[in-house]
């Protein structure tokens, strides 16, 4: 199955990537597994995606690493928010 992964703000800048498509094995996929898989892309990815304050969202809701994925989900990783 395929999912979209989006990055915002400093995370987007550090990774030099705002969006990618990921093809995953069908079973038992979670946000945490996507994070681990992206960390294999290189040292910068490993550093940024292991930041403890990184926020993960799935289909516009904040989720944790155990959140299970379905085909077509939109996942996002971003730093703590600073609007207002």
């Amino acid at each position, binding site marked *: 199955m395929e999912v979209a992964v989006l990055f915002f703000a400093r995370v987007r800048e550090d990774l030099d990537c705002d969006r990618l498509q990921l093809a995953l094995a069908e079973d038992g996929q979670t946000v945490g597994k996507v994070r681990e898989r992206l960390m294999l892309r290189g040292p910068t990815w490993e550093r940024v995606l292991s930041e403890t304050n990184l926020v993960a*969202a799935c289909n516009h809701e904040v989720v944790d690493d155990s959140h299970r994925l379905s085909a077509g989900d939109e996942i996002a990783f971003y730093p703590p928010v600073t609007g207002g």
Partner: protein
Amino acid sequence: MDAVIDIAVLREDFDPGALQEALPPASGGAGAVATFTGYVRGQDDRGALNWMELEHYPGMTEASLRRIADEACARWGLLAVTIVHRTGRLFPGERIVWVGTAAMHRGEAFAACEFLMDYLKTRAPLWKRESGEWGETWVEARDSDSDRAGRWQAP
């Protein structure tokens, strides 16, 4: 009664007077309207600010503001809520955000207005980048904002 919720995320400026006039439901019943306007500060202890740029997550920003508004309505029995947030490049003195609440009484209107700002600052996916005398930097999330938001959680 269902509250009237109005959410807008936009680049252009807005008119706080018009937003306030439009807030109380036409059906009446609101004895109180409370509003908050946030502006770009021109100066802080690091020096003068040139501009600020607000990035956001289109779709999730609106959804997240709506969830926060729903929570405020459920908690304080509000009649109406309006939240307007700007994005893009903003200069010192420009308006960034506007929150308005309409309620039967002032206590609910005041409390909900503050709650909405505290939650918006710590939950809605918006990020500020600043350019000033110190250079260009992403704004870091502040513990004081999390502490303020934490006050609203049930003990």
